[in-house]
């Protein structure tokens, strides 16, 4: 009974309500906020985080975490641009190579977690330093240019609209992710794994295989994110997206996924990402200082979880 009520009036509600409030407040405080061109342009900054958040939702629902995604993103970028500029790889091949390399790096995480039975928090804490370190060995502190023909994807729009290509891509991927998570056997297995790993194993679910697949998925997402980021910034650097993993995890948890696993929705994650984006954009255009923005996002995270905890307990009793 408790779980049914909790899932129906789940924490997603908190994110939705906050999103509406934040949007209204920003528009009220600062009229310059309500400018579609600006909002969609500003949203290009959140697309990479959005794609990482989709895969992170799966990982967290399975009761795990991947701190190394942003390091994979940086390493994939470093490897691809090195291959193009030093070894003459055709630029178009990057579109294929990036997700494959990302997937391979993610699989390494997955194998360490499933075969060595190591906690994912610790494994990805180590590979977070390792992967970014290898990117630094490849590039040093210098940057390598993204091939010209692949630069500027965030400037390409659907004709007659402000919808840019990364936004369309994120939307499509989000719909696919939601389908896989909520409608397929694999999605149910992932949830089962996070609810009770032991029980899942006894029920004959191939938990080891699923773990490897999950972290591979996370790596593939980082590969795609890398393409988007490099296309947007025009250069690859070893320190790209450093610290972004915290924003990604914040979005997933804010979106109502349980960090202990077992529950969460793609819709919640995307809503929360929108919330973070709207709050930061609203504060940015109102001239709020960076450090206050950091504090507000932290507060938001705690308040939303506290709130859903309290309502869940009240309803449960």
């Amino acid at each position, binding site marked *: 009974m408790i779980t049914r009520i909790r899932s129906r009036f789940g924490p997603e509600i908190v994110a939705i309500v906050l999103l509406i409030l934040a949007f209204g407040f920003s528009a009220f405080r600062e009229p*310059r906020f309500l*400018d579609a061109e600006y909002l969609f342009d500003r949203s290009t900054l959140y697309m990479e985080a959005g794609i990482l958040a989709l895969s992170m939702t799966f990982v967290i629902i399975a009761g795990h975490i991947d701190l190394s995604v942003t390091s994979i993103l940086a390493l994939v970028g470093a490897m691809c641009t090195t291959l193009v500029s030093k070894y003459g790889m055709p630029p178009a091949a990057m579109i294929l190579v990036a997700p494959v390399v990302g997937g391979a790096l993610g699989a390494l995480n997955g194998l360490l977690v499933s075969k060595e039975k190591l906690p994912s928090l610790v494994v990805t804490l180590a590979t977070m330093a390792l992967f970014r370190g290898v990117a630094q060995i490849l590039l040093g502190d210098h940057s390598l240019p993204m091939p010209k023909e692949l630069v500027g994807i965030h400037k390409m729009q659907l004709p*007659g609209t402000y919808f840019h290509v990364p936004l369309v891509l994120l939307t499509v991927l989000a719909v696919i992710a939601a389908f896989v998570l909520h409608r397929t056997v694999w999605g149910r297995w992932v949830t089962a794994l996070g609810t009770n790993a032991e029980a899942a194993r006894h029920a004959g679910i191939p938990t080891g295989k699923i773990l490897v697949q999950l972290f591979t998925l996370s790596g593939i997402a980082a590969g795609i994110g890398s393409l988007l980021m490099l296309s947007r910034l025009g250069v690859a650097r070893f320190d790209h997206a450093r610290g972004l993993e915290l924003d990604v995890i914040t979005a997933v948890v804010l979106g109502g996924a349980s960090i202990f696993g077992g529950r969460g929705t793609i819709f919640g994650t995307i809503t929360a990402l929108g919330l973070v984006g709207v709050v930061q954009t609203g504060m940015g*255009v109102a001239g709020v200082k960076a450090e206050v923005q950091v504090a507000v996002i932290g507060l938001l995270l705690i308040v939303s979880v506290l709130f859903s905890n309290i309502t869940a307990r009240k309803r449960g009793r």
Partner: protein
Amino acid sequence: MTRKSIFALAALAAFGAIAPLGCKPAGKDGASGSGDAPKSGSSRIVFIPKNMGNPYFEAMEKGFQQASKELGFEFSTTGPAVAEPTAQISYIKDEIQRGATAIVIAANSVDALNGTLDEAKAKGIKIITVDSDLTGNESHRDLGVLACDFDTMGDFLIEQMGAIMNYEGKFAILSATTDAPNQNKWIKGMQAAIKNPKYAKMQLVDVVYGDDKDQKSLTEAEALLTKHPDLKGIIAPTTVGVYGCAKAVEQAGVYPGGKNAKGAGVSVIGLGVAKQMQRHLKDGIVPKVFLWDPAEQGYIASYAAVRMAEGKFTPADGATINIPDLPLTKMGDKKVGKNNVLIIGEPVEYNKENVDKYAGE
């Protein structure tokens, strides 16, 4: 009706609600914004430092504030909490939306900001770089205001080091990050200068990088002392690094006259903020450091921005702009050089005697 279908419906509804926002208005692009064009008469200059809370850039703000009083423009500072290469992008975008007249920026990366700066320029916002330039990407800004002639900095530092160590013995360099363009230019300059027969007995034994972080700079400086027990001097052309070196020789007691010093001890020189180095200079741990007054860069950048917005000054090789004098410095006509770079002057020496004057508020 399961909860999943409720969410699917809600997602669709939400998307439907946002979708119209995504369509371009039939009229002119961007006409929906209320704050696109700056109101005439009131210009607004925004300064984006590498990161907030950095004393070097706080000193620079004073120049902006002074000019703001004289010229009557609105001035504000905004920027990221940490100096990540791409962290400044969202602040530039926000200022484009807020309708700045000019953005003065100390860029964290020579190339990662190119696209965003172009967007700002396309909206008619003047872009001026201070502190360091977008080396190799100069076309993405209108003007670069630099403190002193970076080409002669290397010679200058070697001569200063030489004079302290009697043109004899081993010395090392502690820099910031390996891709900091100013730093690399100066290191190259020093490596070239050392070939001069005058410095034949001086030996550059090591170049290390402290990444402009407290902990890394201190560890690297201590490692220098370990690796080269007969070291005579360290040149640190970075404000964080020179402070780290000062702490290292102080804590190891090897500064000139320190309890573990061999012979003349290890002399640290470099570029340092007067306030931050005050105690080490006065206690004789560090003989001297150099820096320009960062406020001058803010002051000149402000004048350049306002004159550019008024259409009275167009940066080009050989163009000049007249700047009023500051209390401590004479200004006058400043000439723009190659690549639209404006060089201010010579660095100031801070030592035991004069540091109080410069460190005072």
